């Protein structure tokens, strides 16, 4: 018998290798977990990496307060089902006591950076797992799997360590930490193919459903605590699904009839738009929107 590994086997093994390397070299790792598909995959892979032992690190959710109910329910369901430990850092707390101010456009995605960095400092996390993929965006394409951040959490693309073979250098000085991206080499299609193969459970909003939405800047936004249709914008009931899940104020739905995993894979494979381009207002702000947020300490 000869075992042969396909693309998904290789990606899975690489991610598990990364998880184990961090567990072996760091004192206080944490997994960023929002309930979205990429961070759900991180949790799935972490469980596989350490089975039959429990996952040796907690989860951290940086909560913008602009959530989809289905996603928060799912987040809590995953935590309970696998006996995990969840910390939550709330943007709302920062707005309530004046440490952060609401932006004029109402989006809270960029506001996550400060609570994230505060949580890293106060819990003394030294390795922070994120679900970022290099295929998402061209600044992310330059990201390492182990990405050193200074004590301000900043990413300096010119001073990145060379990443050689699969030998990861996790050394850091006190106050510095390392962001770790086990899904670096996955594409959106790989994620969905793997979700199908492994039967990974995801929040229902990734599949087609009926929702009241309105059109703004070419995106279908849902109403929620972040606001609703303005004058001239019409709330309509449409069949939609989400390709990404982020802050509700800037995450758009796409019109879709893909109600199960097979249909989603067919849709993603045929899509002519990137997942962030189709659904994320925060990345449309400028040519370098993601780069600027990453330099400030964003995921």
């Amino acid at each position: 018998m000869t075992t042969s590994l396909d693309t998904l086997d290789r990606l899975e093994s690489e991610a598990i290798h990364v998880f184990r390397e961090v567990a072996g070299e760091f004192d206080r790792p944490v997994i960023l977990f929002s309930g979205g598909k990429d961070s759900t995959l991180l949790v799935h892979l972490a469980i596989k990496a350490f089975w039959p032992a429990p996952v040796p690190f907690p989860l951290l959710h940086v909560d913008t307060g602009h959530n989809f109910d289905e996603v928060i329910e799912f987040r809590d369901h995953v935590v309970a089902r696998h006996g995990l430990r969840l910390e939550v850092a709330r943007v709302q707390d920062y707005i309530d006591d004046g440490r952060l101010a609401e932006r004029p456009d109402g989006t809270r995605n960029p506001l996550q950076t400060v609570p994230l960095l505060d949580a890293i400092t106060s819990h003394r996390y030294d390795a922070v797992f994120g679900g970022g993929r290099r295929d998402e965006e061209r600044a992310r394409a330059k990201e390492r799997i182990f990405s050193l951040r200074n004590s301000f959490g900043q990413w300096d693309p010119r001073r990145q360590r060379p990443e050689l073979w699969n030998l990861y250098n996790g050394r850091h000085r006190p106050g510095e930490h390392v962001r770790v991206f086990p899904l670096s080499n996955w594409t959106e299609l790989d994620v969905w193919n793997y979700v199908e193969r492994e039967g990974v459970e995801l929040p229902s909003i990734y599949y087609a459903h009926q929702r009241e939405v309105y059109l703004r800047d070419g995106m279908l936004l849902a109403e929620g605590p972040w606001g609703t249709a303005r004058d001239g914008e019409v709330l309509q009931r449409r069949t939609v699904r989400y390709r990404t899940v982020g802050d509700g104020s800037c995450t758009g739905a796409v019109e879709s009839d893909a109600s199960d995993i097979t249909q989603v894979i067919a849709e993603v494979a045929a899509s002519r738009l990137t997942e962030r381009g189709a659904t994320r207002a925060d990345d449309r702000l400028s040519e370098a929107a993601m780069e600027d947020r990453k330099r400030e300490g964003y995921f």
Partner: protein
Amino acid sequence: MSDLLRLATAGSVDDGKSTLVGRLLYDTKSVLADTLDAVTRASTDRGLSTPDLSLLVDGLRSEREQGITIDVAYRYFATPKRSFVLADTPGHVQYTRNTVTGASTAQLAILLVDARKGVIEQTRRHAAVLALLGVPRLVLAVNKIDLVGYDEAVFTRIAAEFTEHALALGHSPDSVVTIPVSALAGDNVVEKSARTPWYDGPTLLDHLEQVPVEPDPHDAPFRFPVQYVIRPRTPEFPDYRGYAGLVASGTVRVGDEVLVLPSGLRTTVERIDTRDGELPEAVAGQSVTLLLADDVDVSRGDLVASAALPPRVVDEFDATVCWLAEKPLSPGARVLVKYGARTVQAIVTELRARFDEQRLSSVDDPGSLRLNEIGRVVVRTAEPVPLDDYSSSRRTGAFLVIDAADGSTLAAGLVGAPLPVLDGVPSCTEGGSTAPTGTSPVADTDDRALVSPGP
């Protein structure tokens, strides 16, 4: 045939590398509409009449402003025949370290030259780095062929000069392919060009889709660096003790006799575990958990290896280093060496030679090694380490040199002398402890064939 090819690009500034990668993405329809819209808008803003395809890959603000590529970027594209992971590495001389990064995991490299300039210093350096790192296949893309009037003589001269250089570096003739292209006009990248009727070889994409990819050699000696000890101590698994890691080379089967190194304890593999169930065997590239028959002392950093073909265990060894830091290397430097899953203290006791990649010769006793220089050194470690030669294993013959003070990565290290041109340097006598089983190196180090890919 493998469904995944990992490749790297290398070239000098202004050879049009980003444009070539952009062209590959564009012509394979890997660029989605919104990305293309953004590039078209940005090109119009810059006063261009057609989309500047290099903007597809130059992701950082300063890259777009300066029209250069600063850092290695990873690209993903697929055709019905294969998926590709492409490491796009910058051509600036000060950024050669990125070429080393891209090449360390590549199964094929595309080297670009400008048809008007031919083979230049950077081309020779890059070819040497690619050969040193054991990239098994090379493509020379002679770009901007449109700017020399699609002249066959120009192409033939460059191809011959490059091929000679590549063969001198140890590549076999069938592992080097040269293709005349224009990334800007699209000639021979994805579509065969009518303007080069004298060229009857494949287009670049045809070649990438068809080139044989050597799989991880399953018949290589088994190597398994232990990353983590899994001890649940739960009611369900009170006594479970598993050794988690990724098979670095070879194959392991239940019942195989193995050694735990550096201690040299001998035991057998009792079980191969995963979350999805037990396996009868595991192969290179696979993450698994091994359970061993005897209650031996194994911890993170140990190497589980084939008992029949173990690596040698030494505390002093010859190595080649690509120096990647501003701070130069001087003999006597105290550093950390990370190999497999272990980091040990080490001293670079001798700097024996610096490699001159222009003349393909070596300079003895250079005194120091600076950024981007390649040298032959002797390393002494604080404890015995199990090592293979890089020329027999890209996985277990590689190491990092790390600055003990600030943690930065100083160099890419390769055990032994993977480039034949450095052979003139007398070899150091390996000192220190010998392998507990008294074994010899597993592979013939005279075998200069480029090694097969690790990743």
